[in-house]
């Protein structure tokens, strides 16, 4: 904690605040706000009631209209705060509107009604976080009955983990060959692989769909995983990093009687770890957030990933924004943890310390 404070209060010259410090911190605070504000807004809004969200309540905290069921009635009515002309306020039940006036009654004595100008009343609201937004879609109950969080989560985890492992394996092997072997056509292959980056995903969407369909992988998670397992970005990223691994290390391993496989997983992979961590993070984020391709391949709800499941909250006949926001928060958590865990590997470059 002390170190964090020391870090956050650093200045250009120790003990003195320069005008450039002010500028720098202003810029940083602005950056933090720009990035963090939508996330915070999402998080707070995920506790709001459906009504507040439909009304686009601009207030930051989750306010909720207090209602009460009056004796002799089954329907809940809204409570309002009425400011009497003498300045006192009372909490009353709002029975109905009557022109510019509103008909009120004391909740304890619902038969004694009286009219007051509408401008003297305002809704009686309290701040309440609706944890139901979270509990109902995950544990069942409420209006979120068809949303099967556990299933979708499992599907998403399976797709993300398997696809990322495949991407890492394929990309690192291809990158090793392209970075460290001399063979005819190497540069052509590299160019072809990188050139596929220029192809927008939407252009190959239909051909890819036909291929997946003919392989019988529609409505299967493998249909989501396999087509994207080899990414040109991954090959390019790892290859560029592996170029920095000295050739002599690989030659030394060869002199040490290591097989090419052994060189790959005992020398090249550990040394390319920072780049592999980057690719792992990217792949996990891509796969976890992927929406379009799973939407094309998957149509049975048993195979839905979380992202597809979320889309079921927003339909022609349905607006469950409160669930959508809450589940979006839950969906964000795993990637956040993955990033927090893997980001330290990005910075630990150890590749060159064994030389000279």
């Amino acid at each position: 904690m002390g170190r964090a404070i020391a870090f956050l209060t650093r200045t250009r010259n120790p003990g003195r605040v320069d005008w450039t410090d002010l500028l720098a911190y202003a810029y940083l605070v602005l950056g933090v706000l720009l990035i963090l504000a939508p996330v915070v807004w999402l998080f707070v809004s995920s506790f709001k009631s459906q009504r507040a969200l439909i009304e686009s309540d601009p207030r930051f905290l989750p306010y909720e209209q207090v209602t009460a069921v009056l004796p002799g009635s089954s329907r809940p009515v809204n409570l309002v705060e009425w400011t009497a002309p003498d300045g006192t306020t009372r909490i009353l039940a709002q029975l109905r509107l009557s022109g510019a006036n509103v008909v009120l009654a004391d909740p304890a004595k619902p038969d004694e009604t009286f009219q007051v100008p509408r401008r003297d009343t305002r809704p009686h609201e309290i701040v309440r976080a609706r944890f139901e937004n979270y509990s109902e879609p995950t544990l069942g109950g409420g209006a979120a009955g068809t949303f099967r969080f556990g299933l979708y989560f499992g599907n998403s985890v399976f797709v993300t983990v398997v696809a990322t492992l495949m991407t890492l394996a394929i990309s690192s092997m291809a990158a090793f060959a392209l970075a460290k072997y001399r063979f005819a056509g190497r540069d052509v292959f590299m160019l072809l692989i990188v050139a596929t980056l220029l192809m927008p995903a939407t252009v190959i969407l239909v051909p890819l769909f036909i291929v997946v369909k003919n392989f019988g992988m529609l409505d299967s998670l493998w249909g989501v995983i396999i087509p994207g397992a080899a990414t040109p970005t991954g090959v390019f990223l790892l290859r560029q990093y592996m170029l920095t691994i000295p050739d002599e290390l690989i030659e030394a391993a060869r002199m040490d009687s290591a097989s090419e496989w052994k060189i790959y997983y005992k020398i090249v992979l550990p040394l390319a770890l920072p780049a592999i961590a980057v690719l792992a993070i990217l792949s996990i984020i891509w796969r976890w957030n992927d929406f379009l391709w799973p939407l094309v391949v998957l149509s049975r709800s048993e195979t839905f990933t979380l992202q597809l499941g979320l889309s079921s909250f927003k339909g022609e006949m349905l607006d469950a924004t409160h669930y959508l926001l809450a589940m979006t928060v839950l969906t964000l958590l795993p990637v956040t943890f993955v990033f927090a865990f893997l980001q330290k590997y990005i910075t630990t470059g150890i590749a060159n310390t064994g030389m000279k």
Partner: protein
Amino acid sequence: MATLELSSVRKSFGATNVIHGIDLAIAHGEFCVFVGPSGCGKSTLLRMIAGLESVSGGEVRIDGKRVNELGASERGLAMVFQSYALYPHMSVRKNLSFGLENVRMPQAEIDRRVAEAARMLRLEPYLERRPGALSGGQRQRVAIGRAVVREPKIFLFDEPLSNLDAELRVRMRAELGALHERIGNTMIYVTHDQVEAMTLADRIAVLRDGRCEQFAAPLELYNAPANEFVAGFIGSPRMNFLKGTLAAAGAGDASVALAVGGEVHATGLTAAGAKRPTAGEPVTLGVRPEHLQLVAPGAGQADMKVDLTEQLGGESYIYGSLAEGATLVVRLAGQTRIERGQSVGVDFAGSSSLHLFDGEGKALARRTA
């Protein structure tokens, strides 16, 4: 037993030939040094022996067996790289044992060999460290240790000392020599440093532009260089060369008319090579700085104006220029009073050692001390 034979070994990268057919035979237990200026192909030749570069022509034989088609991992050799090439993500112990694990050696034997090498190279305190936490000399010893534990047929060294500072280099040089004494394996050592070559080698191969100029024992290279290149490359400061014409040539003597004026009549010559010196042909006279004598002006075959004197205490070097821009270095034992700008005479004929090279640089005749 491990012998190495190269017969007309060639290497080309595309259309560029870098090794033009080299023949060498290295006996078991021999310490052989490849020496030459940078770009002469000595490292390439070593890498071809190691199996890291393919052989474009000719044959590499280890113990009489052709190994051209064997990969580096199958030849049973070990190499110490110029950059050490230690695995940065492994501890020193893992660095040493990696090669042994790859050949599926029993763990007990691995431990024994690693412990033995660590003791021999004084690496015991550092076994659990990563290479990044070692000094240059320690890394160098790990690199050597990695080769030693393999107990290879042949050790290959690719300029292993060039990254060390001068003092450490001298010490490691001595350690390498001692290592060779102790384990007695065949070693091939590449360097551009002739001091390393002279002190370590049993035999030296002097390479130039992908050709072997001479393959002989260090002192033989010094005393009887086969050509002008070897004569100039071995020895520091380098041999003095003076252009001239052969005025007369007998069985054991010759007269050279120097281009700078003056004539040197040398006696006691022995022929080197098959070619007979003939009068009138252009020759180069080679004399090492330590074999020249300074005399009074006019008393020698040429007079020299002193440009620079270097006094090292135990010895002194006089750098001077003759007529027509020819320069000369003379080594004097002890200290000298000769100063810059002074004029001195140089006596070639009285030199204890003289070399005559023909127009193509080949040795014609020499007189050795």
